[in-house]
């Protein structure tokens, strides 16, 4: 940043002409930024106003960038009522929450253990294990659904959240383990060594000494795991068949499957409700997510 200001300072000395050019450049720059922001946010705006329209408004087609009336009827319908397809969106949100939260917990536990082992113990074949874990994040999701469908059938796990929680680990564990292995290796060893000298077992040392220090890293992994689990569609589509157990993305699709009339307002109300949690997480934990993502990506 200092480079930018010092550069700017120098430019300022160059007098009026340069200042004019600078203003033009600035304007161009802010215009460009505005284009990016509008392109990112406008679809959300469209979704929100569509969700606030009544079915009568919708039948008139698009006539304005503003809603004619504001109606929360679609939200009320989505949450309070069960659609003719057997989908209650409030229930679907709850289902998504249960699945994503469970996935997050399991991910954190497994990633902490594996990350600790990979950064702190002298196990053999570390490169192989890390390489394998990384490789699993490249695995084509749709190539997995067939065999896993058959496997879960034998285990009686079809139409069961557990099938989702287990499978979602393929999204969350690779990035979680890599990130935490990294994070742990940056914590000074002296901390736990001191504890072990005091007679604590290594697991105790991990729990009492390392974990408290690693809370920011664990939090990052938890946020990422939650978002990744919240966003899945393909596995839920393949393993869940009861409308009462649909996760939010499945329920959005099911709301679109209305043979008689497509209620864009109700679908978009559901879309808003699904987007809201992740949008809030991004706004409040943006730095963490980016650090997690880029740490996972920049290795």
């Amino acid at each position, binding site marked *: 940043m200092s480079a930018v200001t010092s550069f700017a300072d120098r430019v300022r000395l160059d007098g009026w002409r340069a200042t004019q050019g600078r203003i033009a450049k600035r304007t161009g720059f802010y215009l460009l930024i505005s284009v990016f922001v509008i392109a990112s946010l406008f679809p959300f705006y469209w979704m929100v106003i569509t969700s606030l329209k009544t079915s009568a408004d919708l039948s008139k087609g698009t006539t304005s960038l503003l809603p004619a009336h504001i109606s929360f009827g679609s939200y009320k319908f989505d949450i309070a009522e069960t659609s003719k397809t057997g989908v209650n969106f409030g229930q679907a949100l709850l289902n998504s929450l249960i699945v994503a939260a469970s996935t997050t917990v399991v991910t954190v536990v497994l990633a902490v253990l594996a990350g600790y082992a990979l950064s702190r113990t002298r196990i053999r074949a570390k490169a192989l294990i890390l390489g394998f874990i990384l490789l699993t994040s490249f695995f*084509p999701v*749709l190539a997995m*659904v067939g065999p*896993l*469908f058959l496997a879960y059938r034998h285990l009686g796990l079809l139409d069961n959240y557990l099938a989702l929680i287990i499978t979602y680990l393929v999204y969350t564990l690779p990035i979680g383990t890599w990130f935490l*292995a990294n994070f742990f290796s940056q914590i000074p060893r002296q901390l736990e060594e001191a504890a072990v000298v005091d007679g604590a077992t290594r697991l105790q040392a991990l729990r009492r000494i390392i974990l408290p220090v690693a809370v920011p890293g664990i939090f990052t992994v938890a946020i990422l795991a939650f978002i990744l689990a919240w*966003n899945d569609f393909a596995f839920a589509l393949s393993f869940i068949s009861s409308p009462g157990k649909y996760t939010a993305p499945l329920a959005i699709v099911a709301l679109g499957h209305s043979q008689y009339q497509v209620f864009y307002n109700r679908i978009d109300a559901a879309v808003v409700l699904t987007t809201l949690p992740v949008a809030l997480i991004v706004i409040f934990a943006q730095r963490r997510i980016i650090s997690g*993502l880029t740490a996972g990506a920049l290795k």
Partner: protein
Amino acid sequence: MTTQKPAATAGPALPARPGAGPRPGHARVPRNRQQFNLLAQDRRFGYMLVAPAVIVLLAITVYPLIYNLWNSFHNDVVTSGVPATWAGLANYQRIFTDDLFTPSLLRTLGFTVVSVTIETLIGLGLALALNRAFRGRGLVRAAVFIPWAVPTVVSAQLWKDMFDPQNGFVNYALGLLHLPGAHTTWLAGTWTSWAAILVADAWRNTPFIAIVLLAGLQVIPHDIYEAATVDGASPWQTFRRLTLPLLKPALLVALIFRTLSSFLIFDVVYNMTGGGPGSSTTVLSYLDYQAFLTQFDFGYGGAVSVALVAFALVIAAMYVRVFRIEEAL
């Protein structure tokens, strides 16, 4: 490799690799029996901690792969009510000769090249813009980043709404501006469908590229630029000769991740076009899904899966080669 040097320069960008301490192979040689026991204990403890994660990942990736391999050599249509029978290479013969697999593969590759190119160019522009200091940068960064965090179903649904002929924005805007195409039914034609899919995909994934590139940009020391300015280098020269080489590692990572996820596109296609019109947007993942869960043909699906995994491995191999994990540890 050309990437070696910039990687070294941009060293601080890349957080220390896990296990960067003493290498297992180079661990202190145990001097006596007691030390040897301690090392064995340490290892046992380590394996136990790492085992659950590895076992789970083996179960949900390697097991399906083996199952797919087995299935791909069998006729196994669950709905036929007949047990699986040995099929030899028949399923592979099918995927190479039928009129589904090869067209899907070509479509998928075409989409991958186009989407990754466009998203990388825009993402690079976005990253460069966000790398400059300006008021409200944090907010802008959050705003452009939100699309990445929404479910793919949401991005597909949003753009389906935007392109809807009756209640959408796109046709409304075209009509207001008196541009042609205001009455297009986007999802009814091959190229217009692809355009809609591309927009939905780029909208959600360009931020990812931008974020990775931004991380790469932010670790480039500013004094390099000051030196370049003093030397009278034009902005383009600075970008071409300084920024781009230093950005190469981040760019490669972004490219490989995006190439792969683009190649495996499914959610957006499922929700926007269902592979149609006709089969003009049927991509490989969609074909595989149909084989497994609408036709319950696990033999054919297995063969398609093996092909999918092979392609993914090629992309992953590029990644591993470029970053030489084994050397880093």
